[in-house]
């Protein structure tokens, strides 16, 4: 089962603004791009053409793994606003 199907089971109330804000200049210099594979929701994708990190923040599970795994410690990671983000029914 692919990740999109898994995420489909969750209730999301996305904000219009991202709560995950990487420093795009630092991302260009990053060697590992850990965030692009450790994220359990596949939020981060590297766009080779644009040399830019794509952040699908609407899919975020708010676990915080990317914040810790970020090699350059250049991710501004906040919780979404009180009414926004993911809602777990099972937990």
């Amino acid at each position, binding site marked *: 089962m692919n990740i999109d199907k898994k995420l489909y089971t969750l209730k999301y109330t996305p904000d219009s603004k991202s709560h995950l804000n990487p420093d795009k200049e630092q991302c260009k210099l990053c060697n590992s791009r850990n965030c692009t594979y450790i994220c359990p929701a596949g939020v981060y994708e590297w766009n080779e053409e644009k040399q830019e990190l794509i952040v699908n923040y609407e899919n975020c599970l708010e676990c915080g*793994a990317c914040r810790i795994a970020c090699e350059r410690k250049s991710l501004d990671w906040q*919780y*979404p606003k009180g009414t926004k983000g993911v809602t777990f029914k099972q937990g």
Partner: protein
Amino acid sequence: MLNSDNKTDVIVVGAGPAGISCAITIARKGKRVVLIERGMFAGSKNVFGGAIYTQPTKEIFPNFETEAPVERRNIAHNFMILGKEDSTTISYRKSGNGSYSVIRGKFDRWAAQEAKNAGVTIVEQTVVRELIKNGTTVVGVKTELEDYYADIVVLADGVNSLLAKQTGLRKDIDTKDVALSVKEVLKLDKDIINHRFNVKDDEGVIGQIFGGPMLGILGLGFMYTNKDSVTIGLGVTLNDLVENNYRPFELLEQLKNHPSIAPLIEGGTLKEYNAHLIPEGGYKKIPKLCDNGVMIVGDAGMLVNNLHWEGTNLAMISGKLAGETAVEALNAENFSKKFLSRYEKALKNSFVIKDMHTYKDLMDICHERQKAFLDYYLKKINSFFEMFTTVNSVPKRENYWKFIKSIFTDRKICELFKDLWAIIRLLWGILL
């Protein structure tokens, strides 16, 4: 400003097991307490494996066994050692009520309602962004909408605790000190669960899984039976995910497809997929848990006993002890670091810190010897039983000696001594 209307006795940030336990303890003593939760409702951002433990839960909610929405009473623990294709399972079974599987979304909501009934004011859908300080003393919290003030602020805001970091009590977390856990709740018919796990209605089984897709990396799997669903998941240290470029949900798919796991969950439809970080740093990574006007409880204080799959009980008891200290502090009108350190002292005298101290060397040794203990020996246990159960007309004595010889030839002898030394160190630390 400090005497504004938004002043209460205690503010607790985060309505998880730690925060709710803390708030209810304070409210039951007649003090005013505001519990602030960022999710839609208490429990809506909370994730855990699956079981709550009866004795510690009863300390907070004496009525929970009959009143709370519990799923199944666990009567068996299956320790499953998975090889690539094979597995060895040790099952301990005894009918009792030591733990129950629960669905967080339901249980935490119930617990929050209990807190409300006890007089706790719950403010939901509100994120605390900052602590308000007066000099070195925490005097309140800043949310998106309002500022709230209190004599004491308790941080129960979970493993990421951005607030504990703000207090300066907690440093940045290292990838070695957290595990990333992913899990799925799979809907299955009640009768099918009963049949597959050999239990009656309302009886449940806990599966504790070693190896499989996690051979050689520091990770463990888990399985819980709920009323009409089965939870399966795994947690791997973030460090090992980063080092090996693993995607956590791919590891979970591999675990679900393991020949020993797949038949147990066959036909299950996905109810929910979710993920959570688990503090795994152990005793050495516990920060100072109090300062002027502030205490830290539960995951925010890194209070998890990973070897025993215990977290919610440490959260609840730490919350309760912090709540008791808060009440004493309010009575004495003393909110200094020195006074609040009574909480730390109480925690040290409880099983919480004692257990974490018992396993203080565990994580160091695991990181050091993970290739041996989480790969080689797990496979070796399976190959022993493969040898023992194989009927191939080779004399048994030959098979035994071949197996024994392999232990000395598979790897360097010095590695064997290092393993032995690690076990001695570990046992020494645990028992003495």
